[in-house]
């Protein structure tokens, strides 16, 4: 067994410095499209047309992005049409449209957050990215965050997937079994709006039609650092970001 012990030590520390310092390693995030100014209204309209899910809307010379709908198909990232500007950040967690203010969990949860994840019809990508938080690069234990096997011990419900009909009841039961205070974080475009699956006879089209959602994290899938930001936002150690449209209104 000592063999593995030495091997582990030899590998050195791989863990990111985030949230103390930003992470800049290549490939940690796919980035996201942001509001882009175009030379003409016509070009802005063409850039908006490229989006297959209607996440981009053109207004005069600018094209704005509703990240909640974005499924990271990259149609607006590479191609011949006028392209959107992409930014390589990962702090995406935000308030749902219906909410004005966010009350984080009480102080006691800051370094002790127990999380239960529910795969409610996910394609495997979001779930896999959540799972990556346990790997040495992200190592969420150092921040006092733990996955728990039972809803009775969970403070946070992380939901991935559009809520398939067959997972609706297990999801509800999980939520009801959690003690108060509890929070719900919807991870991924599918969990927010149904994503590419939308609303159908077997898809509820997002978690908010079933449960009250406290925070939502766009992306298809959001990278592990974005999920880490989401978890930090739940405990109040990071602030959720403002909607792009909201920040534009205030400026």
């Amino acid at each position, binding site marked *: 067994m000592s063999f593995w012990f030495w091997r*582990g030590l030899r590998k050195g520390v791989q863990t990111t410095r985030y949230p103390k310092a930003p992470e800049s390693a290549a490939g940690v995030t796919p980035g996201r499209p942001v509001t882009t100014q175009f030379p003409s209204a016509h070009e802005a309209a063409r850039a908006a047309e490229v989006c297959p899910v209607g996440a981009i809307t053109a207004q005069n010379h600018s094209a704005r992005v509703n990240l909640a709908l974005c499924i990271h198909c990259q149609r607006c990232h590479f191609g011949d049409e006028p392209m959107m500007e992409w930014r390589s950040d990962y702090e995406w967690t935000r308030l749902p449209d219906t909410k004005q203010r966010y009350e984080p969990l009480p102080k006691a949860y800051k370094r002790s957050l127990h999380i239960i994840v529910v795969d409610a019809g996910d394609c*495997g990508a979001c779930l896999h990215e959540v799972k990556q938080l346990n790997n*040495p690069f992200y190592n969420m234990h150092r921040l006092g965050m733990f996955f728990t096997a039972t809803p009775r011990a969970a403070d946070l419900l992380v939901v991935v997937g559009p809520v398939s009909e067959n997972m609706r009841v297990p999801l509800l039961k999980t939520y009801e079994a959690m003690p108060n205070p509890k929070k719900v974080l919807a991870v991924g475009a599918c969990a927010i709006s149904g994503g590419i699956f939308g609303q159908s006879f077997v898809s509820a089209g997002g978690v908010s039609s079933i449960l009250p959602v406290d925070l939502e994290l766009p992306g298809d899938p959001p990278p592990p650092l974005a999920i880490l930001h989401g978890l930090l936002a739940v405990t109040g150690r990071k602030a959720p970001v403002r909607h792009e449209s909201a920040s534009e209104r205030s400026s």
Partner: protein
Amino acid sequence: MIVTPAPPTAPKKLEIEEIAAAVRDRFGPAVLLSRGQRGVVLSVSLLEPTTLPPISKMLFWDMGCSFGGIVVEELKGKWRLSYLFLSAGCGWVEVLVEAPSTVSALPSISSEVHAADWHEREAEDLFGLRFEGHPRLGDFILHDQMWPEGVAPHRKLHRELIDVHQEHFRRRPNSEWRPLLVVQDPGAFAMPVGPIYEGGLGQSVHFLLETVGEDVVRAVPRLFYNFRAVEKIAEEQPVSRVLLLAERFAATSSFAHSLAFCLAVERISSTQVPARTKNLRILLSELERLRHHAGAITGICESTALSVAASQAAIVEERLLRASCQFTGHRYLFGLNTPGGLRRDFSAESCTELLKAIDRAVTDLHSLEDGLYFTSSFLDRLEDVGIVDPEKARDLNFVGPVGRASARSGDLRCDCPYEGYETYQFEVPREIEGDGYARLRILFQEAYQSARLVLQAAQRLEPGQISTPYEFLSGGVALGWVEAPIGPALHWLRLDASGLVERYRVITASFNNWLGFRVAVEDFAFQDFPIILASFGLSPTECDR
């Protein structure tokens, strides 16, 4: 070390004419033979559905074909059922049954070809089509405690049946419902696991572990918690939209699925893709396979609680995810394939970067493999666990790495090459033991072969176009296939005259292997269950669609 013993029943490679002749000899007046089209090499139309079981039996058992799956289509006023068989080396053989849509029952083939069992259950659930002679229909995709009888959502007749506002949706579960238990013994009970387990980090699937105390007698998986009806919601949608669906229903092999879909579309429109694209597609497919296998190895190490090894495998996986993101812009290779080619080109410098990352991954995997093979406590937990012997593997038609660990030779990259795989040098590793350890060795070997293929593909990249414009000419039907990391992915696509999808059928390796998992995994100790599960590396969400 690659062990390549002769399989117990070496299937002789047959020419398509030989198969046609044999079918004609035995079933002459009852069938119509024709050259298949659009991906299928031989089409056998049955004049009478009663010929179906014997002809399936002959193809599967006597001609050495493997079973692909059943494609049920409801066309104007008639059923069209296509039973796909793969004859290694010559291609897909289709057995075609047509019946008026008033017919509600067809003969079952699952007593002859066991691998067809779940395909028939699925058709019964979604199309309301009965299969006479099938031992157990019902309670499959539409779970009985939630769905009323008589809903056949994939039928075209009753669109109102799938209306979201119908009262039979969003129902409360029927509390009277009880699962069917088989083990009847004093003290026998069933331990439920799932659908939310491992803190929710496992994909949704439920198991009933039937036991009399110490050992599990049967492990019955209950799937389709993630059923999103991909095949149904694709209908009446344009190709560009369905491509997004094909890419997003099973992310761990998203490139393979989007490629299989694009191949089907390209076959319908007779689009030729440029040589550079073919090589790039192989490069990306193998990158995905390498990453997937690194993830599967992580899963096996985690299941045995060997945490340092699991961490080191996870480092390899995360580095490959980052390399994929740096290379393509997406960690899971979304948004690359398009009918006619690829959506973006890659510079020589980025290829060099990728090769460096792959080289590093292979070095790390080699070192991890050496460490694991000298850790006896780890090997003890894998050896002789979850054994699928070669006979069972053949009987249940195991495919992909799991099948190859049980002496199955199937690999679509060799058996029915696409995108120019026939011009590449690589080996398909095989083992005969069929236990967890054999499956682990296969994963390592395949990962190295994938790295080798990426290198070859990168060396073959000549400057040139990356896509031919895709033009819709006329409707039609075609089969696209790809050897995804978990095994074959078949995408059957029918486009109507206006270019919209009329029928989209996805057959995945997970669907196939989950059936086998149920039958093959019997009589094991409780503590071995996570290890067996991890060593099979099956994806519920890919199975559920």
